[in-house]
């Protein structure tokens, strides 16, 4: 059996109640149901998690490195976007 029919899924595991799902890796599978079972066998077989999400990788839209220049850098020179830029009047204590 070859892998050509298999899709890549990204796996997210929540390690304990109250925490966020964290990306732990990826795997190949035939269907979302299979992906979930493989994720169980590959990533939480030593009880590392209480919940799993699998997402087919093609459904993730990701930022690209080459876009970094116009994507992130314009934020660097606008200190007024940070709360610390503003001087609070003394009467506003302990905000």
């Amino acid at each position, binding site marked *: *059996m070859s892998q050509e029919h298999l899709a890549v899924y990204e796996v997210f595991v929540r390690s304990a109640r109250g925490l966020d799902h964290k990306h732990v890796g990826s*795997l*190949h599978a035939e269907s979302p149901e299979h992906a979930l079972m493989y994720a169980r066998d590959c990533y939480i*077989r030593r009880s590392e998690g209480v919940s799993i999400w699998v997402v087919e990788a093609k459904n993730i839209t990701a930022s690209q490195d080459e876009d970094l220049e116009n994507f992130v850098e314009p934020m660097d020179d606008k200190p007024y976007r940070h709360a610390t830029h503003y001087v609070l009047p003394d009467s506003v204590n302990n905000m």
Partner: protein
Amino acid sequence: MNVEQQNLFRFLVGLGDDAVVLSHRLSEWCSNGPYLEEDIALSNIALDYIGRARMFYQYAAEIEGKGRTEDDIAYLRDERQFTNLLIHELPINDFAFTMVRQFFVDVYYCEYLKQLCESKDERIAAIAAKAVKESRYHLKRSEPWIRQLSEGTEESRRRIQAALVELENFVGELFIMSDWEKELVEAGIAVDREKLQAGWDQYIQKFLAESDLEFPDSQLQIRGGRDGIHTEHLGHMLSDMQYVQRVYPGLEW
């Protein structure tokens, strides 16, 4: 051991043998799986069965009271002393065969272990309670695989149908009871496997009809496992499984 203890010992060793033999067969897929994820998943199921075998053997060794360990029972007995039901020992063959066998035994174990949870022997009930959860997961895996392969290519469908025909010959034995096991049923310890057959047939026939697969309904029922009469395959498997302990007795790592 009195007669009751002898029956209980036989019963536990039989269940342990079923588990250890199937575990070894599944472990033969390790590094040979169709792709990495399925390889890991199958090996994981092999480990579930090893866990099961250990619990049954440990309890059997305690009942026997001769100082034997689970390892002695697994690695230092010969073919004729193994009493697994034959379906567990058949070679892995191709992936379709392996998955049809899993599907058949998963359906069987889901019901068998569910009923074994009611055993008056608390230790056995506890083992069954742990194992039935594993089997329910195993079935969640094996059933979609059969459907998928039957709907796949002409080749995958042909292989599934061939596996059904071959394995059906070994299904009848799952539901044959011997007198000593019936005594354990009367004592509230074991499960009457004869009564499981109708439910098993119904489940499998319904599933196969939905997948447009033929239920072979074999008239041939190959049996003998619980009496130590095996197919030609078990001896070869044991020579592999027991090799290290036979060549280096008592070796540990």
